[in-house]
């Protein structure tokens, strides 16, 4: 096992690995490599007509993206969504997990199911309901705000409020899944720790701060990472609610990529956007790992 490089065992190992490696190679690395190549070309419908209608552009797609105001707007919108929506989702799911896990709560399975329901509901169906909730004149949300003396807000029609509206929907839709994972994490915390803390005179807040949070750390990091990756790829929510409008205030990077690629068939451009997004997500993950390592020596 120790130093058998080149021995028969290595050959056998490769043989056993081969099916998986071939599958990963054909269905993952090959397409990824192909789309990386694509991002250096101007592959589009003229290319479909005739393969000679393709040019190798080097980095021109990326340079043009850097000069494209719509792309920067999409980057800004995506970060807005991730940086505001991500923490909100985490907060909501942690709060829900603590509530559902609390000993004082009855009918726990019922609440778990209720909170989890939005996650498994079809987004298109949800969107119809939320669109009427957000309606500027007849919507329930504006009606409620009206009772508090707040004037009507054109939620999906005003560039200022469209993104918050989308974020609210996304938080509501997604917190249930994280909640479930966090509940599992909470239940793995040994009861003795709380008893010890209680005997040492720790109140509810200090128990939460010094027992729950540290013990939940790895779970929180995992949930945070998954949420971040998912939120960077936001597409369906703006696609069904606003089609990226008004004034492109809800156009995310993936939505822009979809439009470029599948609506206008400008595959080179779309592939370039995909790789910029890939870079951003990778950067986000590395940053998160860095922060995590600094906190836990």
């Amino acid at each position, binding site marked *: 096992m120790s130093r058998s490089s080149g021995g028969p065992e290595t050959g056998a190992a490769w043989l056993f690995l081969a099916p998986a490696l071939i599958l990963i190679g054909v269905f993952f690395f090959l397409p990824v490599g192909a789309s990386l190549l694509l991002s250096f070309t101007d592959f589009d419908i003229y290319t479909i007509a005739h393969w000679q209608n393709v040019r190798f552009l080097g980095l021109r797609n990326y340079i043009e993206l850097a000069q494209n105001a719509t792309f920067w707007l999409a980057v800004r919108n995506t970060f807005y969504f991730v940086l505001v929506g991500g923490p909100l989702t985490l907060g909501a799911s942690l709060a829900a997990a603590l509530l559902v896990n609390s000993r004082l709560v009855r009918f726990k399975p019922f609440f778990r199911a209720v909170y989890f329901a939005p996650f498994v509901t079809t987004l298109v169906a949800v969107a119809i309901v939320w669109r009427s909730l957000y309606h500027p004149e007849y919507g329930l949300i504006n009606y409620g705000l009206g009772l508090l003396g707040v004037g009507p807000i054109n939620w999906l029609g005003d560039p200022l409020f469209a993104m918050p509206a989308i974020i609210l929907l996304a938080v509501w839709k997604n917190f249930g899944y994280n909640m479930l994972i966090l509940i599992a994490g909470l239940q793995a915390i040994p009861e003795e720790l709380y008893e010890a803390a209680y005997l040492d005179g720790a109140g509810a807040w200090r128990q939460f701060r010094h027992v729950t949070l540290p013990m939940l750390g790895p779970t929180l990091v995992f949930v945070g990472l998954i949420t971040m990756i998912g939120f960077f790829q936001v597409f369906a929510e703006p696609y069904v609610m606003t089609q990226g409008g008004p004034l492109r205030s809800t156009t995310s990077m993936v939505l822009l990529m979809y439009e470029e690629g599948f*609506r206008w068939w400008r595959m080179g451009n779309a592939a370039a956007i995909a790789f910029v997004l890939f870079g951003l997500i990778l950067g986000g993950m590395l940053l998160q790992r860095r922060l995590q390592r600094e906190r836990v020596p």
Partner: protein
Amino acid sequence: MVNATAMAALGLTLAGCTGSTASNRTTTVSFWGMGREGEVVQQLVPEFERQNPGVRVHVQQFPFSAAHEKLLTAFVGDATPDLAQLGNSWIAELAALGALEPLNPWVSHSEVIDSAGYFRGIWDTNLIGDTLFGVPWYVDTRVIFYRKDILANAGFSEMPSTWSGWERAMQAIQRQVGSGRYAIFLPTNEWAQPLILGLQVGSPLLRDGGRYGAFSDPTFERAFGFYLRLFRTGLAPPLGNNDIANAYQEFARGRFAMWITGPWNLGEFRRRLPPQLQKLWATAPLPGPSGDSSAVSLAGGSSLVLFRRSQQKPAAWRLVEFLSRPEQQLRVYQLTGDLPASTAAWRESALADSAQMHAFWVQLHRVKPLPKVPEVELIATKVYQYAEQVIRGGQRPEAALAELDRDVNRILEKRRWVLSRVSSGREVLVR
């Protein structure tokens, strides 16, 4: 993305099946139809099959939203059908791909189809240069739907036919209805309205054979200025379709008195407006900047096309001819409300005499196509996005048009390159 691939794969398998059944005596023709028309065509097929023993028609129906992607993937995968219904704004693109069969020889030998039996502007949308790539199936254009009572209250007995008269009427309406209500609804996320106004003042929209944008030219600037003025002076609300949950309800409430929209709304208005309102709405051809000859609208609709790789062209062409007969055109109208492309169908049925249809009959004689370049839909989308920047984002109109042209020129860069290769002798555009 997974969905898209799966759908494409499904499309290929299905198309593969239809191709392989075309053996022994019966010929199977595959037809791709979209939206409601794709459903309706199934009801016309039995009659065709009765008249053409030995020919079976396999209809595949899919939604409009999936059509573009499906056609392109089918082309790449060598799985195009024998014939299809195709929105005429996509003809340039599929013709550029070389996917479509030129129809000039087929039409010149046909006893059913003759260009004289169609609206000229609509027929023209199927021509790329002199080559015909489609036969109009049903037609579509935009006219004004308006509230007769509101217009009459403002002192106008009928819709004016010039821009200046139209603007005066809208101002009069605005004074009558007060704030919170509007003379006209021009959804800020639709490109048809600004582009129609551009066509009306005679803007080519693109210049040099579709190589550059012509939006910052004084001609288009005039139309753009008029369009923006309707918002600036408060005659039109700065709202898109997404901001108005139910435009029919708002029209019924008198939130706006005019709406530039298409024939599909004839049926919707009859269905969705309350009974007491049914006598109060009417349609009118669009006004023009300088009277009738300039009062053009958009030449839209769907055509029937044959695919170049079809093995069953004669049988497929017989189906095209069958669907082009006036009586079949009228059946499609009865089943869907789609306006017939054949003028004989209009005359035989006295369709044009109905008050609400008459505006369409008049307008269809005055329609112009959009530029026939594959990028036309993307460019049209840019137009409303830049207009929206002015209306809702406070940008200066001249700056928006200059930026629009820059953007359009960037989009057309590939086209210029391809065309330059064609002119330098290398045959690349069409295979």
